[in-house]
């Protein structure tokens, strides 16, 4: 995976130390706190829409604007929420995930995580992962 020339490929010890670092735990929990509720939300909302379409046809057939009924409006709302979640995620990732990931990457490339545990950093580079 080292297609870009990188002077110091992190070692296995670096990765273990990085995974246990508070910075990484913060990045992971930031990511999970956004992604998990959003995923649950869109899956439940889609399931609700499908179930309503299957089992509550009378409700979905209520006409709202001219011939446009509730089913079509809720369907179009699925488009709206899909676009909305996409926009929210991008804004969130740019603001909250990218800076944290970038800092972690810089620390890893500098080999600073292994040093933190007092372990001597072996000079070897990790073999390319296939």
């Amino acid at each position, binding site marked *: 995976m080292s297609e870009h020339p990188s002077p110091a490929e*992190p070692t296995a010890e670096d990765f273990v130390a990085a995974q246990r670092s508070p910075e990484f735990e913060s990045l*992971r929990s930031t990511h999970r706190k956004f992604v998990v509720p*959003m995923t649950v939300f869109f899956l439940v909302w889609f399931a609700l829409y499908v179930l309503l*379409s299957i089992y509550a046809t009378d409700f979905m057939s209520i006409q709202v604007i001219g011939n446009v009924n509730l089913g079509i409006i809720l369907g179009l709302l*699925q488009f709206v929420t*899909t676009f909305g979640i996409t926009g929210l995620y*991008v804004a969130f990732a740019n603001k909250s995930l990218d800076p944290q990931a970038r800092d972690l*990457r810089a620390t890893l*490339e500098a080999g600073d995580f292994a040093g933190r545990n007092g372990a001597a950093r072996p000079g070897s580079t990790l073999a390319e992962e*296939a």
Partner: protein
Amino acid sequence: MNVMLPAAEATETVGTPWLNMLIFGAFVVVTMVVVLRASKYTSTAADYFAGGRSFSGQQNGLAIAGDYLSAASFLGIVGAIALQGYDGFLYSIGFLVAWLVALLLIAEPLRNTGKFTMADVLSFRLRQRPVRIAAATSTLCVTFFYLLAQMAGAGALVSLLMGIHSGWGQSLVIVVVGSLMIAYVLIGGMKGTTWVQIIKACLLMTGVGIMTIWALALFGFNFSAMLGEAVDVANNAAILEPGLRYGEDSITKLDFLSLGMALVFGAAGLPHVLMRFYTVPTAKEARVSVVWAIALIGLFYLFTLVLGFAAAALIGEERILSAPGGVNSAAPLLAFELGGSVLLGVIAAVAFATILAVVAGLAITASASFAHDIYSNVIKKGKSSGKEELRVAKITVVVIGIVSILGGIGAQGQNVAFLVALAFAVAASANLPTILYSLYWRGFTTRGAVWSMYGGLIISVGLIIFSPVMSGAETAMIAGVDFAWFPLTNPGLVSIPASFLLGFIGSKTDPYKEDLKKQAEMEVRSMTGVGAEAPVQH
């Protein structure tokens, strides 16, 4: 395209076949020139399989849309909405919402941990051999079903658009499509394929966009009036309400639930879609590409909603069903109704371009999986050179091309939508659970992965074999026999949870402990992009 095609029964043909062929020929010439240019810069394995990772997020987003919006999407959904109204619309929503799975959970970590194929990610921290073989098997199965669908679709399309009705003529067209596909992929690799998909996506969006505005203009841009006309023509108010197709009884209702599940979990497990994320340089660009893909795909399905009801209003069920091509002819008939033979020619060419771009994307995915996973990493145990891998990939493309030409000829007249739904169900059952587990569950093991992938594959394909799709129903593939005992036409409702469960049980009972250092490396790489991106400037 200078092949003499058998004479057609001109009476049943809509529009002018020579014009359709001329426009399609122009598309082939233009894309060939682009592919030839792209091939100048294709030399390494990363060039061939991942387009040198040189595409921008926007370009890749267009290519994803070009890869995803197959002829089944275009012709199938417009036809489904025209005939079944609201229930056809439900399909497109599933196809769109599915992209949130890719955006939130898969695209970025996949880009950060893999190289060319889905198996790269799955075998990152598990045992290479068994996981790669399983992942390559399901990749080849899914792409093969998808390829068959597209090839069969090409044959069906021809009967309507080119005025070729004889079995021989359709077979000849399948041979032409297959040969073009082999040529594109051999010459241009992923770079060439990507450009074909980008050009196709632009043509498709433009063509469908023009038709949508045109159709709306006929109703004074009043969507409600269009719906009213559709109801009048169909003489059935139920066309606007759910249940026309799936509301019959409790089995058809469950069937729809099953289909919805397969659609939502299937898209992010399609190997040819996953592979597209390797063509961009960074995880951030992968994110940008999904955003573009969602915007384009969403817009496209909004267009098809209008086109479907426009076809119902302007053409009507009777004329659609009596046209050669049946339900799939709604979109071309509407094009002819709106803009005569010129617009029909453009739409026909777009539909062909659609098939060509999708089959090229499938072929390169299957060849990458065979060359990179099976040959390089399993047979040669990672000791082959990139050059050897490339040679094997190119041979594989030719083999896949020939197999899919033969399969496509054999699958003529089969239900295209069924084959695509099959591919989605298999992808959702065999691939997605393992991808999610290996990215997000530390306790996931090799046994879990193997059980989940083979289990998902066998259960989904097995249930389809014993479903009314294969036997026992009027529309079954095999007539005259009845060995169906599974009532649903889509297996997702059973096979997807089963696959998740198998992955869980397999991991919990696995006596072999996975390397936690590898897990640490995978998780850190997936979240930070270290090693996959250019180093941070210090």
